[in-house]
């Protein structure tokens, strides 16, 4: 067997007595911890960490990394995820010791360079989105939504008036929207999409009353369409005293083109890990700064950066603040990356990014529209949705096409979402992909369409070229094995995977 294919867990490779890290041997205090600390406070059970050499460990993880698809190795046309290229200079910036070795509670005067970045980042986000103030604290998009819902609640509570119990979301919304609203006891009401895929104004009007706290909206929506009635939508909701929340997941096509703040949104979150090019890291960390209009500023969580004559400092939060939503100041390392990206973009680059994102999506849609049914009509923004419904006779699902694409070296698009389109494949190329790459993808999609008709089994049982094929998630959920301990306990050794 090749060492590079040794699939065992680190625990299974362990050998008593091996070690990787060398630590200082000298002790200073002359005391023995096992005697000085009462036995009742000391750990009694051994820690079953593996024992390996540094080379064992490095090889283990590097070989694991090779079992991943990633932006740097593959094209990732994942709709609503904006898997654009993650520039290396951003990584370089975030790894500088001058930032990594800063303590979050050190005196403000000793971290002015850091403050400058946070302050300028906020200023840039304000300009780009048309909002008046941002908190950089939220760790991710969903965390931003949570913060947003707290702001909505605090705002309405401060004004008295009718009890606002409802949050409206379109039926094409991301799952986090209803989940965030429901966490605060809001009754989530789904607004239907019209036949064009946009918010159905009549249905919206039906649900509007003085109990509406907020409408959460992604614009462009998850079908890749700009809500052309946006000004009417925001006006209507405001007329009833409700607030407008902008889910920034799809901000990428609007840089320098249009601003949520101008559309009438009161609160917005921005996913720095989407629009502002920070890497996804296999699921995180991201950052989800939340911006608000003036009337919501007093409710923002602290601390906020303030520029004074003496330099930058933390402003004490307003007495009406919803309070802290996170430890310290947020995912600063991600902010440094986004800052470097914005410096590279500058005002000239913003619009170029969005134009290319939109053009790329339309190019792909145009080239796929004769093979697959496009869920919407007319041009799209940065993403579009195909429906596989016409292949129902062959019993092939959107997920199967996603799996088959892996064989062609492409990550799957977002599949079975949005829920309003049956058998949806949601495709977002982003601005950083070349025409050649998109052409290869288009070719692969056409070939798969042909296979669906000639050899559907091949698609249904894909992928055929990867290390594993269709891990059984039903089995995984029925009998959860979630750690090495579980494996030992349940005697699931499965080490036959290796030797």
């Amino acid at each position, binding site marked *: 067997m090749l060492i590079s294919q040794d699939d065992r867990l*680190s625990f299974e490779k362990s050998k008593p007595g091996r070690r990787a890290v060398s630590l200082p041997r000298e002790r200073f205090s002359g005391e023995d911890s096992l005697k000085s600390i009462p036995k009742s406070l000391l750990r009694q*059970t*051994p820690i079953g960490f593996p024992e390996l050499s540094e080379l064992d460990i490095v090889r283990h993880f590097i070989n694991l990394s090779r079992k991943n698809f990633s932006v740097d190795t593959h094209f990732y046309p994942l709709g609503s995820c904006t898997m654009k290229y993650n520039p290396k200079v951003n990584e370089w910036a975030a790894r500088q010791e001058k930032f990594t070795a800063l303590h979050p509670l050190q005196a403000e005067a000793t971290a002015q360079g850091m403050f400058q970045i946070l302050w300028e980042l906020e200023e840039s986000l304000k300009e780009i989105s048309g909002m008046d103030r941002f908190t950089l604290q939220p760790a991710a998009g*969903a965390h931003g939504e949570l913060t947003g819902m707290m702001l909505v609640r605090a705002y309405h509570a401060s004004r008295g008036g009718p009890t606002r119990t409802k949050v409206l979301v379109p039926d094409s919304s991301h799952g986090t929207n209803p989940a965030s609203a429901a966490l605060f006891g809001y009754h989530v009401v789904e607004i239907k999409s019209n036949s064009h895929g946009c918010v159905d104004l009549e249905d919206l009007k039906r649900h509007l009353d003085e109990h509406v706290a907020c409408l959460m909206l992604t614009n462009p929506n998850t079908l890749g369409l700009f809500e052309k009635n946006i000004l009417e939508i925001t006006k209507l909701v405001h007329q009833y005293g409700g607030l407008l929340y902008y889910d920034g997941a799809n901000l990428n096509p609007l840089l320098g083109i249009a601003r949520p703040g101008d559309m009438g949104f009161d609160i917005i979150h921005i996913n720095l890990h989407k629009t502002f090019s920070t890497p996804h890291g296999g*699921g995180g960390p991201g*950052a989800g700064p939340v911006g608000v209009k003036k009337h919501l500023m007093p409710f923002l969580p602290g601390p906020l950066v303030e520029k004074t004559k003496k330099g930058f400092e933390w402003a004490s939060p307003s007495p009406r603040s919803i309070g*802290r939503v996170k430890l310290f100041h947020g995912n600063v390392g991600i902010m440094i990356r986004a800052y470097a990206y914005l410096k*590279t973009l500058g005002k000239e680059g913003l619009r170029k990014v969005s134009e290319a994102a939109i053009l790329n999506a339309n190019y792909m849609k145009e080239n796929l529209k004769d093979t697959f049914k496009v869920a919407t009509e007319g041009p799209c923004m940065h993403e579009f949705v195909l429906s596989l419904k016409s292949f129902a006779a062959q019993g092939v699902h959107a997920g199967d096409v996603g799996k088959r694409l892996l064989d062609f070296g492409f990550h799957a698009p977002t599949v079975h979402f949005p829920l309003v389109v049956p058998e949806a494949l949601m495709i977002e190329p982003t601005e950083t992909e070349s025409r050649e790459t998109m052409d290869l993808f288009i070719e692969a999609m056409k070939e798969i369409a042909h296979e669906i008709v000639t050899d559907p089994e091949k698609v249904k049982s894909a992928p055929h070229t990867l290390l594993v094929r269709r891990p*059984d998630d039903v089995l995984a959920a029925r009998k959860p094995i979630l750690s090495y301990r579980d494996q030992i306990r349940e005697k699931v050794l499965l080490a036959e995977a290796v030797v």
Partner: protein
Amino acid sequence: MPYLSLTEEEKKAMLGQVGVRSFDDLIMDIPASLRDPKINLPSSLSEPEVQDLISKLGRRNTTTRDALSFLGAGSYEHFIPAAVFEIIGRQEFLTAYTPYQSEASQGTLQAIYEYQSLMTELTGLDVSNASHYDGATSLAEAALVTLRHTDRPKLLVARSVHPHYRETIRTYLAGTPYKVEEFGFDEKGNFDREEFFAKLNADVAGVIFQTPNFFGNIEDLEGVSEKIRANGSLMILTANPLSLGLLKSPGEWGADIAAGEGQPLGLPMEFGGPYLGYFVTSKALMRRIPGRLAGLTQDADGKRAFCLTLQAREQHIRRERAGSNICSNQALCALAACVYMTLLGKNGIREIAEINWDRATYLRQNIAKLKNFEVDSTQSIFNEFRVKSNKPFAKIEEKLMAQGIFPGVALERFYPELKDQFLVCVTETKSRENLDWFVEALAKC
């Protein structure tokens, strides 16, 4: 623009293929009144200019490497093995998406599974999630789990829990029907047993303790979990994970949930983030865990494989009925912690905890000899302890900072009654010379 690929010619050709005359034809849905906003941003910089700027801004910071820092209080300066950065810098980890497509993500999935395995070993509990945002939010979600699971209205929190954690919990619960009540601490800074027992009643869903607590004290939780269980409540423990190499684990204390901050496990301080929320529970609470879980299974050909599992708990399936709204987590930070724990191994985790304790103990021994400062030498600690100054701390801090020393975190900013007290943290990064110099400088204050 360096990160775009399309040439002007390609753009023109593509617009033609799409069937429009100009780009503006593609964005006709955007009302004209919204289009082309004036955006006031500086001009773009080239890469060397960006690097220069970053370096220049960096030089305006005094790091904990430039100074001699004793700051802790929830963010800790630790040695991080070089291999950690090399591995998490692997682009196949760094630039990968959430592992929903399991065939294309076996590397990330196995690493998460190993992270979960290491965390269950360390905490002595059964099930770890794939990570949460940070200690504060992880604890807030743990609080929600206890409130829902027991269907009771109140949460009890020790005042010796990190002030940011407590504030975040309050923010999360504000406006919900749930209430938070706190119980205090005694002279030594340990939780007040009497007050705790008095407040533990039939309304209490969960109780949160921290050990070592915010003051660095190892809390004696003897008999606590039994009382909590007998009351029908759940116990949440937040612990510095590095201390568990030496100290009693949440599992051994009888906690139902261990939730807290994983930053000491191989993550730089980075001015406060990104960090790592850990979340580990008993089997009984498995289906209430927020966030992603990686599980072991087999593939269609009977081979061992990993996938995300129990996803029916999560927002993308359950929407408004999900227990948590978390989507993006701190995966790369969990990977760093996974690599760090693997590098330390069975013996290293114990040794690093010992070294922290030893150096903190040494510093405390020597501060105890000083005239103007008081420490409680009888209190069991890990790598942090409280120092009381006989002079105004602000003055002392100013003097020491002028010598390049960050003496510690003033407690008064969090606890107004703890005037002129500060929290001193010592990790393996401090040499004997560093500690002796600090004591000498304090003596001259």
